[in-house]
């Protein structure tokens, strides 16, 4: 294509090198997959509505929870935060675009194909992957269905995409800041993404390596995960969680960044302890490499190992606590208003902290012997993921959408979206704590009678939560089509470079770098 030419229609989206276009593509794909993954969750919740097998075969149930977990994490949360990064980072650091725009396009366009490959497993002969998103062998190797190989290659593709995306983000942040924006002056959201991108580049290759080993065990007679040849199934778990634990912080750190941007705006007060917030994120990231085996306390590790991983895991509560306390201190003696982004941010603090507390409980090895692989764990991670990361995502979109579209959205419906989601999410996930403590294992399609009531509550909560998300779509579409025009600052308390650009922001954010004093 010739320089300067800008194609129209579908071709524009396929060939674009523009960070805003690509950001939009990421977000659209993410929300499509949110609905796909959410529908699978609803299949799970429907089957669990009452004891007994009513709707689906247990094997199909396992396929659903596997694909639900994979799609929500790799298809929804990761791409959506990469989408945010694409939209916001150039605007927040005063850059015209991302550092490697053509590669940016490749990073995105691999993803739809990766997920087509993953989805195809549902339609080819034989079961789809049915061994949980954690892919433990030998269930996934010797005993895995044929479709496992599609899953493996799909993960390779996602990995390539994330690594390239992360390289791009790092290069942008390190290299394209406007003159005068030193690292320490950089907005917190950008900081969190810098560190997140580092985590991504460090651990995605490990995941790629481990699924490659799975592939070889399946087809080339290797014995990575087979004791008969001197390997060990548990080795896979070590590799997976060496990736997997940093992965969950990959999901939450950008969310921390979002919250740290939003709270000061709506409290009209500077973020408390900015520097220590940055150090805290750094600490969390570094510690995240040293805690992986807290997912494997029951596999039969030597006692010294269990103690080590318990201590490191507990330590993470300290920097995370610093974040929570600083947020509260930011609110303190502010001048607070409750626009939708703020509502979601406040709910984030409240509910993420509850999820963090249950995380701390899980970290206590002896207690984890009881919690492990029960619904208590399911409650923990949904609390940090759904009212944690997902709420932060909603907060971010409600915060920046006027900047992206140049229009305001319907605050009234957005508030409804918030309150419904808030209530439903607690109805959905809080009872799971009780289920877990009372002894309900996770990943089961049918359960004993004493678990019936809480499961019914959770299912009702699940459907309500799903319906509430339709409101979100309504808000966004209405905003794009018919929202009233807004100013460049949008929010009274807004701060930062992106708000100096007109709304909607121009196609090439900062053609000439702004000067920072």
């Amino acid at each position, binding site marked *: 294509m010739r320089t300067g030419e800008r194609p129209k229609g579908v071709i524009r989206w396929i060939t674009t090198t523009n960070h805003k276009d690509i950001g939009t593509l990421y977000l659209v794909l993410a929300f499509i997959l949110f609905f796909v993954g959410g529908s699978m969750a609803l299949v799970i919740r429907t089957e669990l509505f009452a004891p007994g097998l009513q709707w689906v075969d247990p094997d199909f149930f396992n396929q659903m929870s596997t694909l639900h977990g994979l799609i929500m994490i790799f298809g929804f949360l990761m791409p959506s935060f990469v989408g945010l990064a694409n939209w916001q980072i150039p605007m927040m650091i005063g850059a015209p675009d991302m550092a490697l725009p053509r590669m940016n396009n490749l990073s995105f366009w691999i993803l739809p*194909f990766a997920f087509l490959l993953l989805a195809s497993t549902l339609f080819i002969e034989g079961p789809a992957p049915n061994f949980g998103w954690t892919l433990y062998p030998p269930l996934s190797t010797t005993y895995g269905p044929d479709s496992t190989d599609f899953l493996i290659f799909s993960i390779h593709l996602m990995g390539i995409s994330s690594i390239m995306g992360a390289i791009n983000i790092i290069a942008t942040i390190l290299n394209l800041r406007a003159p005068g924006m030193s690292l320490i002056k950089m907005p917190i959201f950008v900081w969190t993404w810098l560190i997140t991108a580092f985590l991504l580049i*460090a651990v995605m290759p490990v995941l790629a390596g481990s699924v490659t080993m799975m592939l*070889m065990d399946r087809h080339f007679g290797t014995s990575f995960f087979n004791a008969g*040849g*001197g390997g060990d199934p548990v080795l896979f778990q070590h590799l997976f969680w060496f990736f997997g634990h940093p992965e969950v912080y990959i999901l939450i750190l950008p969310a921390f960044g979002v919250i740290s941007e939003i709270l000061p705006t709506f409290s009209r007060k500077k973020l408390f302890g900015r520097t220590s917030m940055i150090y805290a994120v750094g600490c969390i990231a570094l510690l995240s490499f040293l805690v992986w085996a807290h997912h494997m306390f029951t596999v039969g590790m030597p006692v010294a190992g269990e103690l080590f991983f318990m201590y490191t895991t507990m330590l993470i509560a300290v920097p995370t606590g610093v974040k929570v306390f600083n947020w509260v201190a930011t609110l303190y003696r502010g001048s607070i208003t409750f626009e939708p982004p703020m509502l979601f941010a406040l709910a984030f603090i409240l509910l993420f902290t509850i999820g963090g507390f249950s995380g701390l409980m899980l970290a206590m090895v002896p207690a984890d012997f009881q919690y492990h692989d029960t619904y208590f764990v399911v409650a923990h991670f949904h609390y940090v993921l759904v009212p944690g990361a997902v709420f932060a995502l909603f907060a971010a979109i409600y915060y920046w959408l006027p900047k992206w579209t140049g229009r305001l959205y319907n605050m009234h419906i957005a508030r409804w979206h918030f309150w419904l989601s808030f209530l439903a999410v607690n109805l959905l996930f809080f009872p799971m704590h009780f289920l877990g403590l009372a002894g309900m294992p996770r990943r089961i399609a049918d359960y004993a009678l004493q678990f019936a009531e809480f499961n019914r509550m959770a299912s009702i909560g699940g459907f309500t939560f799903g319906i509430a998300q339709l409101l979100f779509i309504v808000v966004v579409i209405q905003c794009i089509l018919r929202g009233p025009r807004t100013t460049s600052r949008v929010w009274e308390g807004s701060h930062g470079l992106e708000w100096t650009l007109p709304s909607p922001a121009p196609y090439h954010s900062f053609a000439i770098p702004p000067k920072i004093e």
Partner: protein
Amino acid sequence: MHAVKNTYYVPSASYWPIMGSIGLVMAATGAVTALHNHNSQYGFYLLLLGFTMLVAMLFGWFRSVICEDAAELYSRQVEQSFRWGMAWFIFSEVAFFGAFFGVLFYARNYSVPWLAGSGDGVMTHHLLWPEFQGVWPLVENPDPTKFQNPKWYMGAWGVPAINTLILLSSAVTVTWAHWGVLQARRLQIILGLAATVLLGSLFLYFQAYEYIHAYQELELKISSGIYGTIFFTLTGFHGLHVAMGTLMLTVIGFRSLKGHFSPDNHFAFEATAWYWHFVDVVWLCLFVFVYCL
């Protein structure tokens, strides 16, 4: 390239990426089909087609980059982005190899001793693998009916030692070529690169020789237990990287012949040299951890 520009160069819309992703997904689908359907050629062709598309994409893409560079569209800042890009790409490769070295470490220090009854493994050994002795390199597997024992393991002081020398000297030659670039000495660049490519190919030749020796004489196969598994995956992935690096060096060599590089603008050359040094360092670790220890 020389004048520092105010505006950043954002490339225009491009078809290369979508071609790359389609190539990738075709290669992946083809690979799975080939794995499942041994008697159908279809998967293999699809794999080949996808791969061809990928290669074509890379050529096209890099050609665009070279043209844009030649048209002086890039500023120092763009070049710096490329640098960061390459550096972090190599870092991701380090992580990838790290995983496999991790396996080696785990197998030697945990799983094999455990199966052989040390530490907490007493009952495992006693009840499940009473015959098994955990000596590394593992030439007797816990279950030799499933994973055939090799006759012997690979020694360090034949071909591997020669290969170490070869790679080390290739590091010298590539650095020498780099000096040539910095001082604009064409002949030195070409000779240095040619020597490096030659050494790289020689390395690959010896490695192929070693593999044949392993399969035919030692009966050491990728399927002969964790030792063979880790031996072939580590050296195999490394070998692939050497092949990639040699290819890159060759391309860089042709570009040098065309006079693409100047003392202050030769990032492609540098990136390749970085990559080559990385491959070199991986080999040193391999030599120490796989062969010597």
